[in-house]
């Protein structure tokens, strides 16, 4: 029996960074927010004008809402 589900043929590689983090970003434990350290001024990621990196959904599109909570509470 074929064990490869039908939809796998449509699977596309993710471009999102994993939860292991990125060398471009750093978590500021004092602010409890992520900083974009690739920029010399280390702004908060949500203030960066560049759309790259783990800022918002567009850069984390696959692992956002569709990754769910992986049924954490079960």
């Amino acid at each position, binding site marked *: *029996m*074929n*064990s*490869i*589900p*039908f*939809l*796998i*043929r*449509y*699977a*596309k*590689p*993710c471009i*999102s*960074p*994993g*939860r*292991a*983090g990125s060398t471009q*970003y750093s*978590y500021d*434990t004092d*602010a*409890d*927010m*992520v900083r974009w350290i690739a920029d010399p001024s280390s702004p*908060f*990621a*949500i203030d960066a004008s560049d759309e790259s990196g*783990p*800022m*918002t*959904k*567009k850069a*984390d*599109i*696959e*692992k*956002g*809402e*569709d*990754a*769910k*909570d*992986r*049924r*954490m*509470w*079960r």
Partner: protein
Amino acid sequence: MILILSNKWDVTVDFVVRELRNRGAQFLRINTEDLVRDGIEVHLPEFRLVLGKTGQAIELQNQVKSIWYRRPGRAFDQLPQEQRPSPATQQFVNDQWYSCLEALELLPEIRWINHPKHNDRMESKVRQLHLASQLGFVIPRTLISNSHTVITRFCSDEGDNIVGKSLYAPLIEEPEQDYFIFSNIVSTCDLNEQAGLQVAPTIFQQLLSPKTDYRVTVVGDRVFPVRLTSKGESPLPLDWRTQGDVSYELCDLPEPITTLCRDYVKQNELYFGAIDLVEFDGEFYFLEINPNGEWGWLEKSAGVRITEAICDLLQHEDVAHTNR
């Protein structure tokens, strides 16, 4: 106190953290992957729940009034794949953490946004569509099946073009590379492999094209509808997420649709929900709800003030607000 359960790389949380800080609200962000280092204590029979954070032990009972449940991190999230234990051991460890964190449910009179059990229940596309239809939404004709014969007949009945998508999270996490399955147009000729269809049920739907996409974010009683359009000359593809250049514009929906969105979230015991609608042939169709959906991208690109609405809910200041 407001408790935020998340992981450190979920930057959407950062919007709320900054807003709460600006408001002078008392809050605690716990990136749960750090609890391995920072610790958790649950004491019984006199119930005490203590979470660690950067060297401090914080007593939660009698303090927490709201919990924002926003994708808690897992014990091995910060480790490269090659340093993690076997998947079975990871599962064992995660299960212990989840079971321990369930102690949060014992905190009295908490407003959960959203309660994880309600989130989980509403992750079912079958339930979502059924409840939407019952409430009064129009939904696409839908088949969920693993029967090659039935699926092929459905496709034929729909004019040989249907939409195929996954019934649950379409993320496939392989050791070296993660994969994602967007919504796809499926024709009869794509359905030639019986065994692949049999091995897992798939959701197939009526193809609604041409269509206009909407993302409707509901926060308590407030409804934020956003219309999605292509920045280029060609319309958005079937799954707009596959296109980079998308415009997001805060818009108005017909009042009955706005009311349906608000009622749908409320009736399913959610405070937050991100609903996908499409407008096709003069009708608004409900596609799905993401009970823990993304919204930071809307805040930035369309100026939708979801942060404020979430903070109001977390601070129990939503009573006076009306829609938008």
